[in-house]
């Protein structure tokens, strides 16, 4: 199956190096019965930096509008999104995740 993953914030540019476009979705082929951990592994093969942030849970995966854990099973009809840190979500003042870009 192919799952569609919504992208937000800096992920729209980080996961689409070639296009220079603010693509808001990512298509990821996965086997039926896959879990969130399998999705993270697939994304890590596409972009190691984003994959590492997913493993560290700096970037979260949501399934049907709820933050999911690694064991959550995915179906082709789920609404899946990668959530970079929210604008107020850090406990360290002044911390920035994204690089400055022009």
């Amino acid at each position: 199956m192919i799952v569609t993953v919504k992208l937000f914030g800096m992920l729209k540019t980080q996961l689409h190096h070639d296009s220079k476009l603010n693509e808001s979705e990512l298509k990821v082929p996965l086997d039926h019965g896959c879990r969130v951990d399998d999705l993270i592994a697939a994304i890590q093969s596409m972009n190691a930096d984003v994959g590492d942030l997913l493993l560290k849970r700096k970037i979260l995966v949501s399934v049907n509008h709820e933050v999911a854990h690694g064991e959550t099973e995915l179906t082709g009809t789920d609404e899946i999104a990668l959530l970079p840190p929210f604008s107020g979500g850090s406990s360290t003042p002044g911390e920035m995740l994204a690089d400055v870009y022009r």
Partner: protein
Amino acid sequence: MSTVDTEASLVRVQREDFSIDEEINRVRNRSTRIGGIATFLGTARDRSNDRDVSRITFEYYEGMAQKKLREIRERALQDFDVLEVLILHRYGEIDIGENIVLIVVGAMHRADAFKACKWCIDELKQITPIWKREETPDGQVWVEQHP
């Protein structure tokens, strides 16, 4: 106005600016037992992380953001001794000095209103999928936190 319509008006994510007076009255009119209203208004500042900021853009996850804001309102009504809660957040491009986010809490007494209002804005920043991009002299920056 139906209950559903009323709840929808009390939790909103919208592009356009809002009237603080109108939003306060929306809460005030919900109960004659309200004796104190606490508000938090977040505005766009021109300085962040030692950089000048000329404009801010907010992006949000349609559906999930509203769901989380509804949950915050419901939990505040359940966990604090308050009578009504309004939560409003803007998205899109916002100029310096403009309104960004508004929390309005009505309670019988001020202490409960203050406590719930602070909890709501703190929780909003923790669990609501909203992202901020600042325009600085060095370029555009996605910001992980806005204190």
